[in-house]
């Protein structure tokens, strides 16, 4: 999932303090799971903003809405009829949802209510960690299902560096060495031969360096 973290309330207040009709817009997908932008968080943020405006003696309305997703036309269209009532939208979906909302509602300022962090997993309640950098050219088949692109600090593709010590990375004792994990895993599945195998240079043209990317699937286009 896409993992996001809450923005400080003070920062959000700074964005919206001059507006008087605000919609706090949540998303039912990834940000709900990582407890940053779901229906519950919409309620908390909207309540906080309402109290802020009341404390300031300002007559401002802050409404709440949570969409199934903010990254698809059909769900974003659900607020088409009401969007004009607002002079600002605070979206607490991921950066994708925030941008798509802004694209769809051109005349209304859309502000981010979260910081979008990475593609990751819920390791435990309240702990999310990165697993994928969306490099566009997956090599997990050869690395025991553990990604050196996202999990090695140097993105090394051919084994651990000199900074690997007792299974941890030199940048932090709390960070596993991705290549130690890969080797352990290859051993466990009896495929250490993959570690010996020479691979051609990875094609990075599918990574972000080539600019914004797109996937075109004519087979599913209507």
């Amino acid at each position: 999932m896409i993992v996001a973290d809450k923005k400080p309330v003070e920062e959000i207040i700074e964005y919206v303090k001059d507006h008087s009709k605000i919609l706090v817009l949540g998303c039912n997908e990834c940000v709900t799971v990582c407890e940053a932008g779901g229906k519950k968080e919409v309620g908390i943020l909207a309540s906080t903003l309402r109290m802020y405006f009341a404390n300031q003696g300002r007559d401002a309305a802050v409404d709440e809405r949570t969409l199934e997703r903010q990254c698809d036309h059909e769900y974003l269209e659900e607020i088409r009829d009401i969007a004009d009532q607002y002079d600002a939208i605070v979206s607490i979906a991921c950066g994708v949802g925030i941008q798509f909302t802004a694209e769809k509602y051109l005349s209304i300022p859309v502000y981010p209510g979260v910081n979008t962090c990475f593609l990751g997993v819920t390791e435990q309640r309240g702990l999310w960690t990165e697993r994928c950098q969306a490099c566009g050219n997956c090599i997990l088949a050869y690395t025991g299902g553990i990604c050196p692109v996202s999990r090695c600090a140097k993105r090394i593709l051919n084994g651990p560096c000199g900074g690997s010590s007792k299974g941890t990375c030199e940048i932090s004792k709390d960070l596993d060495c991705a290549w130690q994990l890969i080797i352990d895993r290859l051993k466990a599945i009896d495929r250490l031969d993959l570690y010996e195998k020479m691979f051609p240079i990875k094609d990075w043209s599918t990574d972000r360096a080539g600019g914004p990317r797109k996937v075109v699937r004519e087979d599913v286009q209507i």
Partner: protein
Amino acid sequence: MRLTYPTSIRIVRVPCTGKVDVGHLLRAIEKGADGVYVVGCKEGECHYKKGNFRARKRVEQAKKILASIGSDEGRVEMYNLSSSDAPLFVKYAGEMDAKIRNLGPNPLKKKNRRAA
């Protein structure tokens, strides 16, 4: 025992304090309650193991949010006691009542009324 506690207090029963969310606490203050306090079981004695610890974290979170918007964070509190300890319940009720009276009425109450 026939103990008495301040009549200003209204009890909202929940199955466990772990059910209480930040949103509930904020909403109470937003709607004009002068204060909200959560009374949970003693730490380490939660029937559901961690409910009262969760509640405490949420109370702390609500306090932080209130402080960040210039409201008095003391309006939200958490207490722990054994469910059979009536004298302590009464003591905490008195403490909270005195504390809130000291803070004065919730300014949002007045503003809400004006808006209505």
